[in-house]
């Protein structure tokens, strides 16, 4: 895997910041007027040029976090810098670098696709650039709909329009809040292609999701948020290795009443009826040569004379990791 942290340092000239983080969140807290605590002391660095997935169940605070960074919600504690600019004191500099695709399908109705996307560009202070708008619309397969009124479009098309609006002003950072919610397969595929292209152009992408395969497939790094707390931030590959577990299940021919002493090192679990042995091991142990590999276990079983009729392995997905993390959260 290439190193996203060092990619695209050429683009950081505009920030005047030597660091590779494009967004710095420190000690961010949000308590809504209802008294609901939506974010607790969240600190996070987003690296320039990476795809960062913010993962968490519904109500975890993902949209709240994004909304604060983008200026839709006021934080009650902490601060955020975008490209070195404070989102409150230097809101112009901060916001002009950001494109936001909101979770809800909130579009104009009577305006044409072309008009609404051009409007967004103007709103973000950029001079009209029909060539760029055309490029964006084409990349989202919206070109032949450019004169259509938005209300005549399907839900999927409206989502494309929202993405086009967010890209109209050539942002350095793109937020996608639950981009796959209610999206058909085709759009999802187009979207991921676009996200990769943007990343290759140096755009930083932050997406929230509770579809885990999305984070698994797309992200360079993953942050897990639950009940307003950022539980963990990790390279996706590291996360998978560190927390990913493999399980080997061995179906025995003859039930065992107890585990033989010779197998103690493996930390096996024996099912109640004595017919099934379960061996759980971290995937990053693979290749370790301490005899505790699957081969080692199988050798130990045969030397103990324990016969088995079947065996299979399972690897935990990001989903399993996620569920176990959220359960562990306070």
């Amino acid at each position, binding site marked *: 895997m290439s190193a996203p942290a060092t990619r695209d340092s050429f683009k950081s000239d505009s920030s005047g910041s030597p660091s590779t983080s494009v967004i710095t969140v420190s000690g961010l807290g949000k308590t809504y*007027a209802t008294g609901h605590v939506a974010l607790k002391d969240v600190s996070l660095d987003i690296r320039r040029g990476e795809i960062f997935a913010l993962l968490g169940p519904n109500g975890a605070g993902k949209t709240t976090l994004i909304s604060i960074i983008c*200026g839709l919600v006021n934080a009650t504690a902490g601060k955020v810098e975008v490209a070195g600019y404070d989102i409150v004191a230097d*809101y*112009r*500099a901060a916001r002009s670098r950001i494109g936001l695709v909101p979770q809800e399908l909130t579009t*104009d109705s009577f305006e044409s696709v072309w008009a609404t996307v051009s*409007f967004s560009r103007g709103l973000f202070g950029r001079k009209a650039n029909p060539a760029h708008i055309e490029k964006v619309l084409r990349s989202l397969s919206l070109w032949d709909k450019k004169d259509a009124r938005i209300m005549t479009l399907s839900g999927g098309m409206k989502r494309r329009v929202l993405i086009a609006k967010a890209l109209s002003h050539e942002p350095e950072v793109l937020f996608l809040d639950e981009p796959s919610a209610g999206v058909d397969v085709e759009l999802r595929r187009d979207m991921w292609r676009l996200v990769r292209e943007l990343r290759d152009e140096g755009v930083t992408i932050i997406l929230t999701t509770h579809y885990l395969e999305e984070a698994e497939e797309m992200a360079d790094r993953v942050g897990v948020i639950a009940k307003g707390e950022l539980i963990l931030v990790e390279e996706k590959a590291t996360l998978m290795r560190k927390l990913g577990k493999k399980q080997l299940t061995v179906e025995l021919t003859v039930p065992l009443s107890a585990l033989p002493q010779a197998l103690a090192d493996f930390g096996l679990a024996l099912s109640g009826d004595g017919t099934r042995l379960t061996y759980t091991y971290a995937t990053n142990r693979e290749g370790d040569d301490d005899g505790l590999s699957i081969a080692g276990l199988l050798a130990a079983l045969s030397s103990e004379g324990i016969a088995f009729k079947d065996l299979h392995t399972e690897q935990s997905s990001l989903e399993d990791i996620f569920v176990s993390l959220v359960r562990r959260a306070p």
Partner: protein
Amino acid sequence: MNLQAIRAIYGFEMNRTRRTLGQSVVSPVLSTSLYFVVFGSAIGPRMAEVGGVPYGAFIVPGLMMLTLLTQSISNAAFAIYFPRFTGTIYELLSAPVSPFEIVAGYVGAAATKSTVLGIIILATASLFVPLEIRHPFWVLGFLVLTAVTFSLFGFIIGIWADGFERLQLIPMLVITPLTFLGGTFYSLDMLPPVWRTVTLFNPVVYLVSGFRWSFFGHSDVRVEVSFAMTLAFLAVCLFTVRWMFRTGYRLKS
């Protein structure tokens, strides 16, 4: 200053106006014409002149104000309420625009629309009654000033309203009565002294009076007072809007 943003908002709003041109022009013109048919042509000839001005001409400034106020308020209120209602306001809040730029775009568009409307009504009125305008510059001045002030007031209502009913409430329940009781159809000295005093608490009196002065050269209240009162109301609205954006009132949670 994000001039592109002001242009974008202003253009967006003017496009919306163009799309709904029929209803935004036809209905006020029609209702004004009806007023002239009833008050100007039917009743007017039986009325005495007011301060040397035929009754038909006398009511022109008041009628223009009536339309100007209601249209300014409802245009601007709807312009900002609708994005709040549909959720598209997210984009405005996430954009690198200052409150001033947002207000300039929305209020500028609403005020433009009602100023144009006022001029159309003036043109319509001149078909019914002969009009001689003493201070054309001041007519335009009061027209624009009132349009801006009440568009700003409408903008405030659009941020404050949390339902379409409330959006209608202020224009219906407050502005129309105040305008009717603000000397639109009569001169204040036609009222008994007590009512004359009460009326002086009605801000619309100052608008209509000042406007009428710029048409006919005389008025119920001194024109300087009218002008100052309008500016004062503008200032109150400006401070309210500033406060709303500072606190995020009903815009941000």
